[in-house]
């Protein structure tokens, strides 16, 4: 059983609180998280897997295993890779309904708007939207099957 998305978000919030608002530490930490993200197969880095609306290149794919969704992602910039890794940590192993109804309260709690700026905020929102679109697609596919 996967932990709830609230538990995972609380965990992220407490990790970020250790950084004490230091911008440089925060940026380094986000990039470190990105470095830990499992590699995405080169074959998946296609034009159609690029998330539209991000200034950096972000590739995102999803698969479903026993009603749980798994995302893989990569980016050409280290910070964006770190940001998408946060979302993957929260959403991986969750059901499509959980993802669709998710309230991502950690974004505001860790003060993300303070350190990613408008351009990246829009990109981050685009990643969330794309993940929810995947969840919606899997959900409707399940509905057809059952």
């Amino acid at each position, binding site marked *: 059983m996967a932990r709830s998305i609230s538990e995972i978000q609380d965990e992220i919030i407490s990790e970020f609180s250790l950084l004490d608002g*230091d*911008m*440089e530490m*925060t*940026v*380094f930490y986000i*990039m470190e998280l990105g470095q830990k993200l499992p590699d995405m197969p080169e074959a998946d880095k296609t034009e159609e897997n690029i998330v539209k609306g991000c*200034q*950096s290149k972000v590739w995102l794919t999803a698969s479903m295993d026993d009603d749980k969704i798994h995302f893989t992602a990569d980016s*050409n*910039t*280290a*910070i*964006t890779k770190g940001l998408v890794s946060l979302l993957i940590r929260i959403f991986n192993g969750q059901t499509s309904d959980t993802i669709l109804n998710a309230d991502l309260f950690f974004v505001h709690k860790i003060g993300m708007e303070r*350190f990613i700026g408008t351009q990246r905020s829009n990109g981050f929102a685009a990643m969330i939207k794309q993940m929810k679109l995947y969840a919606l697609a899997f959900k409707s596919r399940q509905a057809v099957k059952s």
Partner: protein
Amino acid sequence: MLDVEKIREQFPVLHQKVNGRDLVYFDNAATSQKPKVVIDALVDYYQNYNANIHRGIHTLAEKATKAYEATRVLAKEFINAQSEQEIIFVRGVSEAINLVAASYGKAFIKEGDEIIISGLEHHSNIVPWQIVCLERKAILKVINITDSGELDIAHYKSLLSEKTKLVAVNHASNSLGTINPIKQIIDLAHGNGAVVLIDGAQAGAHLEIDVQALDCDFYCLSSHKMYGPTGTGILYGKKELLEKMPPYQGGGEMIKDVTYAKTTYNDLPYKFEAGTPNIADVIAFGRAIEFIDSLGKENISAHEHELLQYAKEKVGALPGVKLVGTAKEKVSVLSFIVESIHPFDIGQMLDARGIAVRTGHHCTQPLMDRFKIEGTVRASFAVYNTKKEIDQLVEGLERVIKFMK
């Protein structure tokens, strides 16, 4: 020698902490900061004599008109134009180029004519000409650049012909800092009967400009890159050319008489200044010109050149750093990439240390394509920057490079 500490005192914005550290502002090629005299001029206008200009006969209108026109005289002297009639206030270089492209293009560019730009141009000096070429069925030609980021003059010569009607190049490149040999470019164009527009956006605060000595036909400046406010700038045009050109926009100010049957246009420069102009910013632009004049372009250039040399040495020596644009003659722009680190990441990490640089393609995508890169990190220096700030940049870069290893 300039007293840089004294100059810094005149710029309120520089004295702040960003992310807990002293701000280091190295994005001057995008826009420079404003000295207090410029900021005060804006407030003074709105607080004490805000009025619409040229038409009013009351005291405030008279005062505002005088102040506005005084900037025109300052601008004329700043670039050594022959008369104030050759100075047109515009929103900035982009509008100046669009004005010439639309108006001169309409009157003088015909099917099959050729317009030459260079491979170093900002999108603002590419797109307006593409629009003209589409409309007039003219052809756009582009001067090649060398690996060091200089114009290939032999290639330029080979592009020139009796079909060439206009040449548009920048005085200095915003992405690489290259200073172009504009006198030579102008003379060669004139030899083929073409007119020349110079985009002076990156020259205004740094280089001597003498439009008569250059014999250039059009020259464009943006106030906000010259310590002045945003939203204003000038288009210089030779009087005989401006007189032959049709108006760019219609409206108040630009007319002499209006009837439904026929409208006669105002004289230069008002023919090209439709509507209520940007009065406050133009007045404050005058203070910015005086600020530059008071320091002296020669002194400014010398100081900035020293900063550039220092930065080239220090940043260039860091592991994995490759400087992009190594022309012999440069304004104070240092563009570089770092092996296997994306410019955005570098920009973000430097910002976390209070250092403002520009990252990306700098509105010169074709130029980035030429170097087969997505973008660069660009540090551009102004008269108020110091070597100590460059040390801070180097320290920041060292940390980034170490962390990303």
